[in-house]
Each structure stands twice: as C-alpha cells, then as structure tokens.
C-alpha cells in the first residue's frame, strides 16, 4: 500500500473514464456478474440503472455548470424574472416516471426468478451462529461448522505481526471447512440463525439473504463454473461480525459425490471417539485447536478474557470448580455464551475442558475423557 500504489489506483480511476473495459478488468471497481445466470441478470440490471443515473446526472450537471459559467453577474448577466412554467414542470415530472417504468420492468422479471427456489437438486440448511456458520446437507444427514481459518484468525488479532496477513491464505476470506456443491445443479439454501441476525452473502453466487432466529429463509443458486467462491456475513452480529467468512467450492458431480462419501466416513470414525480414552497430551493438543477455533474469540488467546467476557485463566470454573459444572457450562452455554454442545463432539468438549483446566498456569492436572462429556450432556 505504498504511495505509488495509490497513485496507480488513482490513475486507474482516470483510466476508467477512457477505457472502461480495461480498467474494470484490472481494478475491482464494479459489481461482477459472477457465475450464475441470476448474477449476470443482476449485473445487467445494475449496469442499466447506473448508466441511466450517469446520463441523467451528466444532463442535469451540464445545465447547472452552463448556468454557473454564463449566468453570472460578473459576466453582466441580468436576472430573468420567470418563476414557473406549467408545461416544463409537467414534462420533467413525466420523463422520470417513464424512466422508472423502464427500470421496473426488467427488475420485476429478475426478482421473480430470484424468488423461485423450486426444482432444486441439493438442499443445504445454513445456520448463522456468533460467529461461524453451520451447514446441514439435509438429504445426506451431514452437518458441520465452518470457522474462520486459523492463519487469518491469528493475523487479525489486535497488534498481531502485520506480515501474517500477507502470509495468510485469502486473509479473512478463508475457512477451516468450506462447503462443497456440484456444478450446474440448483442448490437450495434454507437460511436461519441460532442467536442473532446474520446474513449469508457470496457475491459471485449473487445470494444475500438474512439469517433470522425463528425464520427459515429460502434462496438458491446454480453455479455454472467450477471454482472457489468467497463471501462474508453481511448483517452486524456482534463483536466478530467481520470474522465469519463463507467459502463455497463448486466441483464436478463425481468429486461432490466422493466428498460426501468421505465426510460420512469421517463422521463414522469420529463417533468411536466418544468411548475412547485419550492421553493427557492428546487431549491438550486437540483442546488447544478447539479452544482457538471456538473459545479464543471471546476469552482471549491466553484465556485472559476481555470486555464483558470473563477470563478463564485462574477462574474458579476452570480451576477449583467441579469438572461436571465446567462441562455443563461449555455444553449448555450461559447468558451471551452460546451452547457449544451442538457444535462440538464429546471428544472436543473433553479435550477443551482438559485444555482450559491445564493451560496458562491453571495446572489442575485434571484429565477429562469423552465419556465424562457424554455423561454431562
């Protein structure tokens, strides 16, 4: 972001006036049509309205500028005293009306396409949580959470090393587990929220829909190009609103089928973990990962807390309190802390409990096994 970089951008802006297509390709100044038919309709509509506004603006501004140049007292202009004209006033009321109709017609057709979610091939339930997304493939009985990726999460901490951002893969627009959908298939989204409002937005897929507790909003997209598309939460949802990105991988049907199969196998494998006994080192390592993904946003990377969020370092719950209370708090939540029971496996809950009771000098020596987490549910 050097000064020369900025000059380049400003030059690009000037270039936009001269050679729009070139400038648009090089600098992201405008909407993108994206990879769906609807996205392309929206883009066309955007271009239409923008050009209507631009031309209307140029006309009005030209009249004003002409007037400012020539109808000035210093040039000896004498003020005319006319102050109304029914004809003129009717004309300039009717012309905007006609222009509005010209905009409303294509807008209406596009809108009706957008609102038609019927005949879908894949249905995914999307649930917004503070501050992550949960995806549930309804037909496959497959559900998982998608968090900000770990490298972005470290780089976005207050006072973090600035070079981390450059190193992070797609800083702030990358997740630990993207959703995967087949290309050229109509994907229906059932969008809701668990706690507060969120909004699921991927610009290239031209979907933005609010996620609202108690509501299920429908939306859909049919991606026509294989690729990875990124978006963000678009409705203020609290502290980490800026840190719950969305990543959608559009793949060929075979690859999609293989992915579904692999995910199901992984779930079956993890189910066995609930009855397994882990060593303390295993639990601590797993616990640290879970803590960073799910807990550190509020309780701090070192368990130090912050603002309304209590410290865990040295806190009675994570030291002298009973293990069972600690487990129950994590599983059921309390006040503004959401319940983590639905998002974490028994092994995850056990690991993070072990971690919190032993990290940052809490040193209780407690080891919590998945069976205890299962019992606390």
């Amino acid at each position, binding site marked *: *972001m050097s000064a020369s970089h900025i000059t380049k*951008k400003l030059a690009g802006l000037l270039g936009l006036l001269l050679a729009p297509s070139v400038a648009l390709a090089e600098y*992201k*100044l405008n909407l993108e049509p994206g990879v769906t038919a*609807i996205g392309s309709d*929206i883009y066309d509509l*955007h271009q239409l*309205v923008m050009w209507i*506004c631009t031309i209307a*603006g140029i006309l009005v501004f030209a*009249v*004003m500028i002409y*007037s*400012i140049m020539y*109808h000035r*007292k210093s040039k000896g202009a004498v*003020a*005319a005293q*006319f*102050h*109304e004209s029914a004809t*003129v*006033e009717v004309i*300039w009321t009717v012309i*905007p*009306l006609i222009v*509005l109709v010209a905009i*409303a017609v294509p*807008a209406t057709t596009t*809108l*009706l396409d*957008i*609102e038609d979610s019927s005949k879908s091939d894949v249905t995914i339930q999307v649930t917004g949580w503070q501050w992550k997304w949960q995806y549930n493939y309804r037909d496959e009985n497959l559900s998982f959470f998608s968090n900000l990726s770990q490298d972005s999460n470290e*780089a*976005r901490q*207050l*006072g*973090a090393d*600035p070079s981390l951002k450059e190193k992070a893969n*797609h800083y702030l627009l990358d997740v630990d587990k993207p959703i995967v959908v087949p290309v050229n298939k109509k994907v229906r989204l059932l969008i809701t929220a668990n706690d*507060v409002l969120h*909004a699921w*937005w991927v*610009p290239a897929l031209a979907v933005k*829909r*609010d996620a*609202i*507790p*108690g*509501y299920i909003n429908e939306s859909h997209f049919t991606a026509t190009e294989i690729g990875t598309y990124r978006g*963000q939460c*678009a*409705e*203020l949802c*609290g*502290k980490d*609103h*800026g840190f719950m990105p969305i990543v959608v991988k559009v793949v060929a049907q075979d690859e999609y089928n293989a992915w579904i199969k692999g995910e199901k196998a992984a779930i079956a494998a993890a189910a066995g973990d609930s009855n397994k006994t882990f060593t303390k080192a295993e639990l601590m390592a797993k616990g640290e990962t879970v803590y960073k993904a799910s807990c550190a946003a509020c309780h701090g990377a070192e368990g130090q807390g912050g*603002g*309304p969020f209590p410290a865990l370092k040295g806190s009675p719950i994570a030291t002298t309190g009973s293990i069972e209370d600690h487990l129950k708090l994590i599983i059921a939540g309390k006040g503004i802390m959401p319940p983590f029971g639905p998002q974490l496996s028994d092994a995850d809950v056990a690991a993070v409990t072990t971690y919190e009771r032993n990290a940052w000098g809490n040193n209780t020596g407690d080891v919590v096994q998945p069976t205890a987490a299962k019992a606390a549910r």
Partner: protein
Amino acid sequence: MSDAPTGIKRWLFTTNHKDIGTMYLWFAFIMLFIGGAMAMVIRAELFQPGMQVVNPNFFNMMTTLHGLIMVFGAIMPAMVGFANWQVPLMIGAPDMALPRMNNWSFWILPFAGIMLLAPMFMGGDFMAGQGPAFGWTFYEPLSGQYDKLAFFIFAVHLLGFSSIMGSINIIATILNMRAPGMTLMKMPLFVWTWLITAFLLIAVMPVLAGAVTMMLTDKYFGTSFFDAAGGGDPVLFQHVFWFFGHPEVYIMILPAFGIVSQIIPTFARKPLFGYASMVYATAAIAFLSFIVWAHHMFTVGMPAAGELYFMYATVMIAVPTAVKVFNWTATMWKGSMTFEVPMLWAIAFVFLFTIGGFTGLMLGVVPVDFQYHDTYFVVAHFHYVLVTGALFGIIAGVYYWMPKWTGNMFDIRLSKIHFWVSTISVNILFFPQHFLGLAGMPRRIPDYALQFAEFNQISSIGAFIFGGTQLLFLYIIIKCIKGGDKVSDEVWEDAKGLEWEMPSPAPYHTHVTPPTVK
C-alpha cells in the same frame, strides 16, 4: 433586558427563541465533533487491513455511537436550532408559540446525550468500554444481548420527548403566529419544509418510543415481542424501527432542502422556480416516506409481492426529488449569479446530494439491492445524502444567517478555504466507498480482506482532511462572533424576506409589533 438574568441563569431559564436556537446550534456543533472524533477512530482502524487501533467491540461501539450521535445529536438539533432562530424571524412572529416548553425541549438534550455516552466509560479500562455496539439501527436480538440497554432506551426516550415537544412548538408557531398577510403559500420555503418535517416527527417519534419500550420489557420484564424463542418476531422489530427510520431520514434532509431553497434565489437574484411545486414535492416526499420503509429490509425474506410493492413505491420518490433538483437548476438558469460562501455550499449541496439521490434509486431496485445491501455502497449512499446533503445544508445555512445573528461578516478568505478543502476531501472520503461496496466489502466490519486496502486508505485520508477542516469552521464561527466587518441590515445584496428587514445583529426581541406582508 435589565431585569433578565445574566450568566449561566440566562441560558438555563431563557425562553427567548434566539437564545434557545443558539444553544441548539452549539449543542449540535459539540456533538458533531464528538461524533466526528468517533468517525476518525473508525477511519484510523480501517486505514490498513488488520487490527491496529481498537478491538472489534470498541469498533462496533464507535460505528454505533457515531451514527446515533450524528443523527440525534448533530443533524436534528442543528435543524431545530435553525427553526428556533429563523421561523419567528421569517414569519414575523415575536417568539415561538410555547417558549417555556421550548426551553425544556432543549435542556432535555444534554442529559439524553450524557445517558447515551455514559456506558462508554463504564468498563474500567477505556478500551473495554460498555457502550452500545449493535449499530445505530439497534436490531433485535443483538441489542437484547447488551447488558446496559436501559441507558440506551431511556436516552432514546428523552430524545423523543425533546423532538416531539420541539415539533409541537414549531407547528403551533407556524400555524398561529404568522404576521398579517403571511398566508401559507407566501411562507418562505424553509418554513414550509420545517412545518412538514414537524408533522413527520410527531408521527414517527412515538413509534420509535414504542420500539424501545418493547425492547425494555423484553429485556427486563420477560416479554417476547422480538424473541423468537418466546414466540416473538425479530423481523417485527425491523418493521417498527424502519416505520420510524425512513421518515427520519427525510426529517434530516427536508429542512436542508428548505435552507438551500432560501439561498439559491438570493444569489441567483431570481425568485425560486416553481415555489408551489416545491411545496407539493416536499409534501409528496413526506407522504411517500411513510409507505416505503421495508426497502431497508429487502434481504429479510419478504414475499415477492411485498418486495415488488416496496420497490415501486421507493423508486417513485425519485420523481418529487427530481422535481426539486430541476427547480433549483431552473432557479439558477438565466439568473445573475454571484458565488458568496453560502451559495458555494448550496451549489455543492445540489451536485452532491443528487449523487446520493441516484445511488438511492439504484438501491431501491430490489434484485441489485441484493448485491448492494449492507455493503459500503450503502455507506457511501447515505453519507452523500447526510453529509454532503444535510450537513452541507446546515453549513450553508450557518454562513447565510450568521451575519444576521452576529452583525459581523465572517472571514471570507478562511471560509472559502473551508469550503474548497471540505468539498474536495469529502469526495475523497466517500466516493471510493462506492467501489468498495461494489467490490464486495460489507459495512460495519473492523477489518477487511487485502483487496480492499487501497480504497480504504484513500477514504481514510479524505476523512482525516475533512474532519480536520471542520476545526477551521469552529475558528471561523468564533472569530465571527467576536467581531468582523459590520454588515448591513440586508446583509446580502437584494436578499428577500422579513429576516433581512430588521437590524443586524438581530435584536434580542424582534417583530414586537407584527409586520404586514403584502
């Protein structure tokens, strides 16, 4: 004046419309600097990607309080200040109709402001401040998570009392206290816009009070108006809020339309073109403002029929708004224009407000709004209408009437510097935000992906210049109050209207015997 209290008591107990107008304007100015300082924090954090200055919660607190303070603390009180000073002068009334209530409606404001800001200082550590951090629109259920909600709710209630009392006063004054011969259709346009604005305020402030009262009982008395888990409806909140909120944006802009409609004819030396159509357009905009609220919530999942209705109704607003812009242009056409400082601001207003109006039309088209909604495109849009619209109107009004208020001409050289630097920097500040929004940057985020870095940096540089320049405005005002070239009664060559027929500075009591309007 010999028996009138002096010192602090003069200001505490005053029932004089000029004193109260002055207090409103100073209150608004102080709030402008507080809200502006918050904007500087926001732009400093967004200067580069990554978190450098504040934590995310503090950032959200800044955006929230910046919005609330600018809307309720700066723009609205400034407009009421103008109404207090100018409405009696312009209609030939000796004072406001209800002078004691006038005093009360002002003195509520500082307490409301303190109550709104106080939780910011309740975190122990300043960066752990407990101020509201849920956006100026305070959507449920997020706002329900805030544990000092009562401060916010009572602050809003107090602001509402103040606005309702102020509006009643303005309506009573305009309808009852016009000088003989001052028929409604002879009133200056500023008076007309305020009359219509006051009716809007009376209509919607109680709706806002209802919304926050439901929040209060949800939070503290176990009701579930907005809580889905209790059978309530979070979307209901948005409908109630925007039923207030949309007319609210016209409450902020209509008086600015009025100010500009006073200034342009003066310096074009030509009567306002289409006076009657200006009045009807203002009334039409006010009426439409009640039936378009859900265009703020297109992504909420309304049925297609609802979205179509709100789209058609919304884009209709472009018609009366265009009429206004055409009328201002036609007023300048074949005039004999000079470009004194108030005229410069008024012309900048017409240009830049029009840009905000165009993006407003774009946002009204539902399918494309799905891409624009809650991005920096929206931020750019409403700052064009509120900063280069409402605020520029206010600044134009200050330069236009300040010589009449103080009897002194302001420093013209400095005020031209103020104009040019502000107008250039405000565009550096807000124009790139259109690109950011179209490229996909959501609003209300404290940190962003690397591809948004350059335009954010440009925008921040514009913000620092624009913010800093307003300190010059403060200096110009203080200098003008303290002294300067004495102005004539007319102040501006051939200025028309009752306010220009009285001495400069305007005496403490004016229109003691009503003038007669031909």
